[in-house]
């Protein structure tokens, strides 16, 4: 009988620090753990005492990769707390921004972080020599998404223009028309991406779990909506705590969550399972071509769902931009009336549903803060998946077990530095 022990320190090609520990004695699994060891940054603790105008800029620094998501969730929570209404134009601009980030993040994850595993390369850099046209295509699509976020948000990492009630500066119509043209020209790149992913074999593994995502009757929800669960139906964002139920575990500086079962999945696959009927036409055909049918319980298909969402993002962005151009852009600078209050806001960022909640005093100073990020909500599910997946791999060489477990974690596209920055707080 075999002894296996694997200790992957700082799994690579993901954001933040996490370890995989596996210990098998004579074929018996002694230890199988997904440990998160990121340095905690106590984010909520230093948002308190800051003005409502600063909070979204500070919480943006929770995560570099989904800083647009954090900014928008933070603004929505602050606007809910202060009772600020936003215009149709602002909603439209924010939808464009969040689709832009989804496109950028999914292309980065699918091409740069996951594809190397599927073609047996340690990273994207060697692919520059072996598959130059693939790498250039990935870079082109990522540049398009980044440039779009730069135009609409001032900056793709830690955006500048989104602010409470609207935007400090609007993009020019010339810039918008130019980026629209590039989106149209990017469709062939998306089709080539689908063709590439059709040739890659996605590991087969299934484990049924609860899936949670934002949902709305108007659209395939990313920016606005209610909380939907495959096990528990729909509930308002305001009572998000009843869904997340965070708890601490010794092995991780991040907190774990559970709802109806002992873990749940958030992210592209959850959004697909819950809202796939509202996908754009191109996205639906891409799902079919890649063999992704709802409900899908294979966590490795999260990357496939991301490719589907990338196609959706491209088509949706063109539609949203046309809507924006037809309305015409107008300068809006509404006054913000301050009031004491508490409010919660949620958006579905690339890695899953993200909750922010703030309490403000009547001077607009933040007194309490709470953020629950997607990767936090997935830690328990990763742990449960690992415990179910390891037994199927016991006959494989140790190297392959290590790679398959790492690929499992990467499929979730986790953002660990996020998960420990902000930890749920029991109002102690």
């Amino acid at each position: 009988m075999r002894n296996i022990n694997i200790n992957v320190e700082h799994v690579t090609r993901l954001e933040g620090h996490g370890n995989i520990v596996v210990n098998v004695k004579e074929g018996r699994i002694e230890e199988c753990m997904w440990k998160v060891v990121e340095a905690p940054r106590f984010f909520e603790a230093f948002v308190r005492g800051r003005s409502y105008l600063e909070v979204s800029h500070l919480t943006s620094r929770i995560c570099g990769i989904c800083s647009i998501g954090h900014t928008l969730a933070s603004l929505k929570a602050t606007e809910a707390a202060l009772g600020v209404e936003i215009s149709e134009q602002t909603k439209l601009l924010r939808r464009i921004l969040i689709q832009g980030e989804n496109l950028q993040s999914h292309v980065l994850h699918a091409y740069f972080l996951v594809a190397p595993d599927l073609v047996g390369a340690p990273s994207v850099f060697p692919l520059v020599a072996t598959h130059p046209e693939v790498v250039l295509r990935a870079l082109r699509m990522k540049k398009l998404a980044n440039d779009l976020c730069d135009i609409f948000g001032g900056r793709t990492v830690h955006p500048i223009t989104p602010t409470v009630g609207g935007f400090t500066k609007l993009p020019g119509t010339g810039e918008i028309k130019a980026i629209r043209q590039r989106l149209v020209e990017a469709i062939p790149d998306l089709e080539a991406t689908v063709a590439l992913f059709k040739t890659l074999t996605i590991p087969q593994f299934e484990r049924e779990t609860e899936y949670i995502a934002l949902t709305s009757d108007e659209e395939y929800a990313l920016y606005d909506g209610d909380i939907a669960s495959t096990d528990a139906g729909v509930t308002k964002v305001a009572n998000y705590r009843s869904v997340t139920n965070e708890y601490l575990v010794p092995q991780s500086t991040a907190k774990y969550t559970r709802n109806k079962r002992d873990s749940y999945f958030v992210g592209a696959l959850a959004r697909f399972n819950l809202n796939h009927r509202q996908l754009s036409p191109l996205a639906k055909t891409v799902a079919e071509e890649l063999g992704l049918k709802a409900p899908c319980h294979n966590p490795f298909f999260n990357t496939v769902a991301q490719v589907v969402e990338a196609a959706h993002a491209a088509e949706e962005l063109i539609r949203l931009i046309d809507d924006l151009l037809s309305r015409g852009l107008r300068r809006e600078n509404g006054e913000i009336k301050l009031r004491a209050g508490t409010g919660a806001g949620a958006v579905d960022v690339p890695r899953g549903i993200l909750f922010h909640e703030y309490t403000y005093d009547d001077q607009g100073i933040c007194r309490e803060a709470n953020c629950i990020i997607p990767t936090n909500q997935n830690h328990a599910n990763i742990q449960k998946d690992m415990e179910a997946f390891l037994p199927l791999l016991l006959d494989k060489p140790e190297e392959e077990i290590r790679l398959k477990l790492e690929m499992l974690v990467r499929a979730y596209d986790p953002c660990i530095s996020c998960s420990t920055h902000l930890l749920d707080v029991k109002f102690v």
Partner: protein
Amino acid sequence: MKPKVAFFDFASCEGCQLQIVNLEAEMLDVIGAVDIVQFREAMTESSDDYSIAFVEGSITREKDIPRLKKIREQAAVLVALGSCATIGGVNCLKNFQPLEEVRRYVYGDRAHWYETFAARPIDSVVPVDFYIHGCPINKEDFVKTVTELLLGKTPETPSYPVCVECKLKGNVCVFELGRFCLGPVTRAGCGSWCPTYQDNCTGCRGLIPHPNTDAEKEVLQKYGLTVEQAVGQFRVFLGYGEVAK
């Protein structure tokens, strides 16, 4: 012979490393000029044989110090990457609240499991050779610094304030838009990123040499902030320095 380059991070949001990945096609020029041997966020292959180390993030716990010292010993050139590493950045906001209360507030009764001390920039622990400022860094700044290192030139950060770049762009001063800007005492190099989008500069690139911070605080008050609020403006990114005390 291409110099070997490695990327490391401590307490950070990894936005600065992402900016490097966001160089897109120019990234190919970078890997044409240098050999990236360690970059956990994007690469699995890794080696400890490097001569230039880019270090992102602040030091926030005892456990980080040995790892940072090992990097300093190995690297001929250590470059602090981004505000968390160069000046402490947003992590230092935590330093203004009594440590114990912060840990209890966030971790509740299990606070003792998570050790932490006042967040600090890299050069408060090990000597730093060059700085790439900003939160996030400016992509062109990174390429310029790499180019200058390859040329054997001292990578230069502007010693003049953000106002210079703001005026060169013909921006409307954001003080006239009712905002409170730290541009006059903050190092330029970002192309006055935030004021160009009509938001105020919050000083993420650190103070210029010999800043007249008293005059800046006076200006902030003249435009409507209380003394306490004016000092508070300096705590977002410049919390580690005296100016924010």
